[in-house]
């Protein structure tokens, strides 16, 4: 039935942090009150990427985006917008109209202006639980076209021509991967979607699955057709309950519509998808470990070759692609490889999704064409560093990547340029650091993550990262020793070259890249016992200055009785007793305690 109005409420994990379904229910009540409930469609959408302004709601007509919607104001917004035809301006994020083309759908807004949404084209716009919504944006059209007009070889040809490369981080050409799997003569083959996203601060895959699960399904069916596989598996971590629920529903409705199962769209082609949950090990994002995990073993990588395309799941040829890679497939088929390859740089085509985090105004999910500079991402799309602080570095590629500095900001985002600058594309984590960040501490943080997530199989990663972590820990605690930086470099280089899998090979990257770009900061820690960002607390000295009014607040919180003084007089800290916990600094209302 035709609806006059539509209300789209973002239901990504971030926006849903209140009471799930609460906003929808209030909206329904308001509409009922005004007799508009039959004329309005309320739907839930996936992530729009504006997580810092969430919860987000879109009202049509007008495609007005409202931010910071909550139980208290949603009623008023709906009444004003629909009944009184008046926008509630203080909640409007932007009022630009949407274009029809999905990849430029949000016009010239600051946040969206430099974005180009291909993988995330439907996220935040359609109801991920409604297959009709997906169908209305040309969903499954690519599949229909492939099954009727293309031979498997022609599909692979298109993917090859598009120049699409693996979005999981390594950037292996997707078409070649497909071709290698298709070439194998085995009757049983598998297609796997890797949704085991585990980098700290990354939520690209989660949002993509939550926002548009059908795209992934469609991509996988096309992949299955191209390589000759009948079985698809989505390996997704159990910590993503909403994504799993939506994927389950999407698979069920696709099955109901004859898009999965036997004789898809009345052709000879049969394909079905099942979901396997991962228990949350970072290493299970590595393809061979992922396969082991699906097979029921402990997720530990195995040596390659043989590659999964030859000997993968249960020893059969297996095609594994990441969520974002799959999401690009239907678009490549629909709009053509030529169009797709016109976007991006010479060797990196299309777009890339990033999860922006850290010291940046617009934290959230973005998708930009390859070739966009880091500066554009951070300062235009991301809105720059908040509170007038100064940019220091940007960490891309998560625990596998490296840090880039001011002079690298004009680096264009593509696999080769990022690697040349000393970092990597990775799966899309991007953490912006300002002058308040200590680079040694950052390196320590990522290395600790890698060590904790090491599967323990190979010596360099298991033992080597532990020793590096010990060295970094003592440096941040002010116990660094002469030669420690050189030891980090020696171990780091060996671990990179000798480890079994990508996790180990890339684990030292954050350390080696920060040493390369911030060596003096390391040396200050080791030689001068100083942390210029005042992050490494063990090296700090807390002192009471002349602003002290003698309120005794600090005396009361000090756990070691290091602070003493007479009431109404300037207090002192006994440095031999101080454990640098910072409690006095936090409690002082007069800025009378300095740390340096």
């Amino acid at each position: 039935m035709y609806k006059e109005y539509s209300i789209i409420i973002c239901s990504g994990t971030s926006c849903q942090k209140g009471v799930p379904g609460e906003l929808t229910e209030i909206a329904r009540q308001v509409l009922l009150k005004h007799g508009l409930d039959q004329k309005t469609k309320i739907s839930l959408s996936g992530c729009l990427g504006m997580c810092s302004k969430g919860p987000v709601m879109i009202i049509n007509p007008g495609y007005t985006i409202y931010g910071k919607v909550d139980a208290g104001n949603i009623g008023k917004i709906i009444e004003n917008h629909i009944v009184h035809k008046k926008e509630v301006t203080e909640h409007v994020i932007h009022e630009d109209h949407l274009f029809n083309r999905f990849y430029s759908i949000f016009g010239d807004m600051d946040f969206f202006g430099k974005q180009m949404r291909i993988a995330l084209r439907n996220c935040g716009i359609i109801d991920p639980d409604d297959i009709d919504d997906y169908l209305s944006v040309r969903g499954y059209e690519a599949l229909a076209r492939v099954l009727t007009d293309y031979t498997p070889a022609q599909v692979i040809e298109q993917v090859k021509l598009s120049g699409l490369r693996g979005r999981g981080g390594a950037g292996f050409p997707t078409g070649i991967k497909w071709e290698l799997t298709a070439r194998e003569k085995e009757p049983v083959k598998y297609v796997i979607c890797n949704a085991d996203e585990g980098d700290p601060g990354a939520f690209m895959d989660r949002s993509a699955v939550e926002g548009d699960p059908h795209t992934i399904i469609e991509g996988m069916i096309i992949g299955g057709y191209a390589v000759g596989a009948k079985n698809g598996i989505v390996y997704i971590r159990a910590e993503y309950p909403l994504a799993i629920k939506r994927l389950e529903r999407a698979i069920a409705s696709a099955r109901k519509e004859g898009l999965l199962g036997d004789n898809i769209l009345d052709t000879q082609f049969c394909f079905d998808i099942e979901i396997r949950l991962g228990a949350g090990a970072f290493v299970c994002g590595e393809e061979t470990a992922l396969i082991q995990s699906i097979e029921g073993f402990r997720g530990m990588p195995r040596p390659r070759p043989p590659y999964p395309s030859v000997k993968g799941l249960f020893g059969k040829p297996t095609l594994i692609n990441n969520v974002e890679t799959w999401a690009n497939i239907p678009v490549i088929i629909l709009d053509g490889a030529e169009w797709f390859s016109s976007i991006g740089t010479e060797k990196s085509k299309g777009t890339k999704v990033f999860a922006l985090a850290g010291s940046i105004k617009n934290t959230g999910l973005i998708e930009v064409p390859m070739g966009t500079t880091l500066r554009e991402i951070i300062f235009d799309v991301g809105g720059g560093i908040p509170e007038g602080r100064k940019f220091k570095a940007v960490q891309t590629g998560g625990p596998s990547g490296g840090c880039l500095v001011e002079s690298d900001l004009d680096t264009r985002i593509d696999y080769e340029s990022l690697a040349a600058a000393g970092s990597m594309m990775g799966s899309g984590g991007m953490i912006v650091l300002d002058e308040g960040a200590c680079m040694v501490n950052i390196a320590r943080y990522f290395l600790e993550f890698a060590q904790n997530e090491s599967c323990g199989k190979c010596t360099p990663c298991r033992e080597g990262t532990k020793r590096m972590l010990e060295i970094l820990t003592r440096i941040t605690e002010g116990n660094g020793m002469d030669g420690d930086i050189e030891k980090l470099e020696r171990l780091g280089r060996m671990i990179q070259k000798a480890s079994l899998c990508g996790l180990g090979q890339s684990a030292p990257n954050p350390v080696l890249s920060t040493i390369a770009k911030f060596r003096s900061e390391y040396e200050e820690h080791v030689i001068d016992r100083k942390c210029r960002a005042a992050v490494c607390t063990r090296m700090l000295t807390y002192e009471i200055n002349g602003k002290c009014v003698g309120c005794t607040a600090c005396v009361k919180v000090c756990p070691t009785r290091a602070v003493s003084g007479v009431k109404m007089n300037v207090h002192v800290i006994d440095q031999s007793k101080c454990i640098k916990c910072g409690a006095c600094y936090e409690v002082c209302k007069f800025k009378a305690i300095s740390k340096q």
Partner: protein
Amino acid sequence: MDNMIPIKVNGKEYRVKSGQTVMHALDGLGYKIPRLCYHPKLSIEGACRVCIVEIKGLKNYAASCSYPVSANMEITTNSRELRQARRDIVELILDNHPQDCHTCDRDGICELQRLAYAMGIRKRYFEGERKQYAIDTSSASVVRDPNKCVLCGRCVRLCSEIQKVNALGYAHRGFKTVVMPAFNKPFSESVCTTCGQCINVCPTAAFVEKNNTRELFEMLDDPDTVKIAQVAPSVRAAIGESFNLEPGHAMHSEIVASLKKLGFDYVFDTQFSADLTIMEEASEFLERLEGNGPLPMITSCSSAWMKYVEQFYPEFIPNISSCKSPMSMMGTLVKTYFAEKLKVKPANILSAAFMCCTAKKYEAARPELAVNGSRSVDIVLTTRELAWMIKSAGIDFLNAKGEDFDAPLGLSSGAGTIFGATGGVMEAAIRTAYFLYSGETLLDIELNELRGLKGIKESRIKIHDKEIRVAVAHGLGNSSDLLETVKKDPGRYHFIEIMGCPGGCIGGGGQPYATANSIPLDEDCLLKRAEALYGLDRKKTIRRSHDNPDIQRIYKEYLGRPLSKLSHQLLHTHYKEKTPHGIIWKGAVE
């Protein structure tokens, strides 16, 4: 695929067979890349990273154990950078390893020690925290010391791939990764069959047998007991290796002389009780064959195998021969027949057994094998422990000769000797069953189809009108495969021999460690040990158990006849289903 391809190694040109790994190709060219987790009998792990090489065109090093060689490959095996990387990797292993080499069980025969020396680790650069775990001494047979584990994964692979027991797995991540039994329960409560093969393949001392030497020395000091030893066939076939001899020397008289010097009053031969086992087992088989069933009958000599069947194949328990193992038969006779002869109370007898086996330590403690409320075998030591005791007591083993096993439990036939090699029990049983069934003597007694190291061996033996179909398996994995065949085709065999360890007892978990120039589970070594036993058999005039005059005498004097009431009471036992952690009791499902 086996065509020859050109490769370059350190700039030199060679031609090698395609379809092999870089390591194998280099092995054939006179290189020996250092290695640790690699084992030729196990799947490729690629974990230790010691065997790395440089391959032109690859960004990173390649583990030569897993990387396939290809045409025109340019390999560098020895560069400054590579040497440093290998050295650093081994140092990293060493840094997380107890520094107690000179008080370690494996001092001098430890792969890590040798590797550290070869890599030139004279200084430590990266030392830090070391792992600290409790040592698991709960098992009667195998001690698990995770502090010494280098996480090469050989034990895990062996236990799952060769033994199909799966008692071990990895737990936790990163630096805290550890190999443990299911749920970190005590080893004694796990599915471990106590075969001890983990000890054999472990490069360090993360697994060792429960050491009973000190206990035995103390027992030997007791002036009020009669000290009686028994020695398993395979001990004599391997102990020489502990004294730097090549495998394949039969050292029975050196062992007897050494045991006497250690303080034993009588040294009996487990081969005698092996002959006795044959009398009982062959009789039991013929009884089953003549209609009483159930068939196939399966041997029960191997202790690890018995625990395996109780846990994993309880449905086959009715098929298991009720005969005790030769060790337990000997222990029982020592504490009954021989005690009566000596007019000594069983409590005043020390019954010690020297076995090639760790599982026998577990078997000796089984309550159902007790005789009149006390153990028939008081203490069990492995070949390795015996060798150490001899060294420790200052005995010149290689020159201690000239003594033979004592009567009346020391004379054995060649049939009892070959018990130690896979197929030996079956061969011995057929030699006697043939006679018992037909009244005629089997002339062609060397059953070559049952010898050798093939995983599962089959044969058909014609006794008059009757064709007996037999099968032999060694190693628990092969045994499991064989049982699966029997499940599908129950009438396929009449008689099955199963030994828990690869090669049979000669490859037992208590045998000497592989030396610097050999590898654990080496087939060549196993074959030489087996040949030592077959050689002894050939030299004997009595080669059939029923021809052993002392066997005939013990039946005449004491037991009556095979399967008599007294035989049943003393020499037979029963088995029952076991459900340790990791096994679901089949009754619980319904």
